[in-house]
């Protein structure tokens, strides 16, 4: 889940009876499983909420390149290097489709980029954690992409057409990434003593931050209630987190690794795992900018943008010259 704490209108969900005819027709279409397309009428709140959500997801893909890029130059084999490059390339591609989807809502990619660089728009908290060993490339694929998929699979059915379609393509690639991550973890967990230690250490560091990716419980949140009524959020944070733990705990066991939670246990009656909540104070610290890598991540993006200015300006100036020459030739 790359979108966290997305604000909606904050006003609570209106009943159909309280809606004007236009909004009522819009909501009924969503209720019936229909799609909203860019030129259709939509409430302003829906549009803004989606821009925040899709924008945050896009930014997460972009910033998410950095912790992995940290290991591309140190990947241990040519095959691993190629896989990681392909993955990072997919992520930049996901960023691109998502920015395009957001642009259909009347915001430009440049504006969203400026809002990311100024810190006004956020990206997922998870990318503010460092990748310290090669096993972290496994943990990121297995846990981080695994958590992201939990949310993204249902979003293929989201009400906004361009977002749903972007998500279909993204999900295919993400599940491939998750398998690759698990494959790295397998090699590490079944490898030498040092590799096993790296794998366990990666799980220790990424377990709770991965649980945080779903955001705090939103059972009482008016923002989530509205997003769910609009079908731009399909499940509650707790539901998705539970699903993630249920899927991941047996995988950890299969790898012979220990989830860093002494309360983790399978409850035969409910058919679900019980587990400890992450430290939500840490989560809010990370959102405020005090995570281990917030400063470096934003600094890297800002530097790339600033140092790339002459390139963007140069290419634009050249395109403009060519356009003028073409007009003159007509």
């Amino acid at each position, binding site marked *: 889940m790359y979108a966290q704490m997305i604000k909606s209108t904050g006003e609570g969900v209106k009943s159909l009876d309280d809606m004007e005819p236009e909004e009522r027709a819009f909501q009924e279409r969503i209720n019936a499983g229909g799609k909203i397309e860019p030129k259709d009428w939509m409430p302003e709140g829906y549009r803004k909420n989606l821009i925040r959500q899709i924008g945050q997801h896009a930014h997460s893909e972009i910033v998410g390149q950095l912790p992995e890029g940290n290991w591309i130059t*140190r990947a241990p*084999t040519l095959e691993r290097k190629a896989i990681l490059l392909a993955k990072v390339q997919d992520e930049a591609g996901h960023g691109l489709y998502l920015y395009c989807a957001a642009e259909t809502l009347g915001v430009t990619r440049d504006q969203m980029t400026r809002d990311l660089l100024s810190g006004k728009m956020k990206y997922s908290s998870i990318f503010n954690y460092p990748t310290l060993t090669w096993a972290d490339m496994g943990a990121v694929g297995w846990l981080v992409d695994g958590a992201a998929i939990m949310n993204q699979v249902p979003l293929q059915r989201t009400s906004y057409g361009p977002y749903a379609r972007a998500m279909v393509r993204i999900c295919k690639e993400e599940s491939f990434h998750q398998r690759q991550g698990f494959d790295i973890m397998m090699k590490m967990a079944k490898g030498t003593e040092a590799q096993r230690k790296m794998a366990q250490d990666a799980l220790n560091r990424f377990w709770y931050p991965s649980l945080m990716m779903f955001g705090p419980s939103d059972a009482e949140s008016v923002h989530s209630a509205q997003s769910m009524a609009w079908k731009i959020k399909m499940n509650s944070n707790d539901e998705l987190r539970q699903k993630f733990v249920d899927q991941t705990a047996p995988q950890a066991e299969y790898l012979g690794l220990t989830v860093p939670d002494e309360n983790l246990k399978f409850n035969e009656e409910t058919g679900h795992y019980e587990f400890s909540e992450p430290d939500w104070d840490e989560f809010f610290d990370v959102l405020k900018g005090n995570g281990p890598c917030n400063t470096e991540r934003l600094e890297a993006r800002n530097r790339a943008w600033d140092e*790339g200015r002459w390139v963007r300006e140069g*290419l634009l100036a050249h395109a403009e010259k060519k356009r003028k020459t073409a007009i003159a030739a007509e």
Partner: protein
Amino acid sequence: MSDALFEYLCRMGDNTLVLGHRISEWCGVAPVLEEDIALANTALDLIGQTQLWLGLAGEVEGKGRDADQLAFHRDVWDFRNLLLVEQPNGDFGRTMMRQFLFDGWHLAQLKGLMTSSNDQIAAIAEKSVKEVTYHLERATDTVIGLGDGTEESHKRMQDALDRLYPFVGEMFIADAVDQAMVSDGIAPDPSTLRPDYDAMLDAVLAEATLQKPTDDFAHKGGKSGARHTEHLGHMLTQMQWLQRAYPDATW
């Protein structure tokens, strides 16, 4: 004979390995998202080609070394890449100028290899030509766009060309390994590729409003391994670190 072939295959594979690695250093910090994607794509192509070239080199050598062993367990003096590709990225303009200068040679070389007397080499060349045709197209567009862009982009591209041009000559200097390849019908004589390359360079630089340096001095020592620049060693410390630190591990 097989010694020369091994050397030759290492040259091809080390060029793609070292340049692929250099480009991968751009991950996540390119000037615009489309360039992040294109750079990752180019790096990916080059690393893929490396697996083929160095894989074949290992087979030809017959000592049981595979592509990974060649990539991660040789030291600087055993690397056979051109000096051009080990040069640091510099700004985006220098990275793309290096790419353009290399791609022009690389494509001509690969086209020559498509008719190689060695079927495996011809097959690798055929696959690579498709990828490298696109690399050259993109690098050419970027060199022209930035050369003939703003005053600043023009100056940066001219600086990049001046800085890198002394590494162009090495690509075309034939030595004993090349001669052995030519006489076995395996590879083209690099010196015969120069006139077309120069014509291509002149046409692109003219459109880019850039001046080719008049001094044709050429640094050499990369493809022979006799004297690399200081940059390669630093790159290898990063690239080979995990393999060297944990030699008994599989990844």
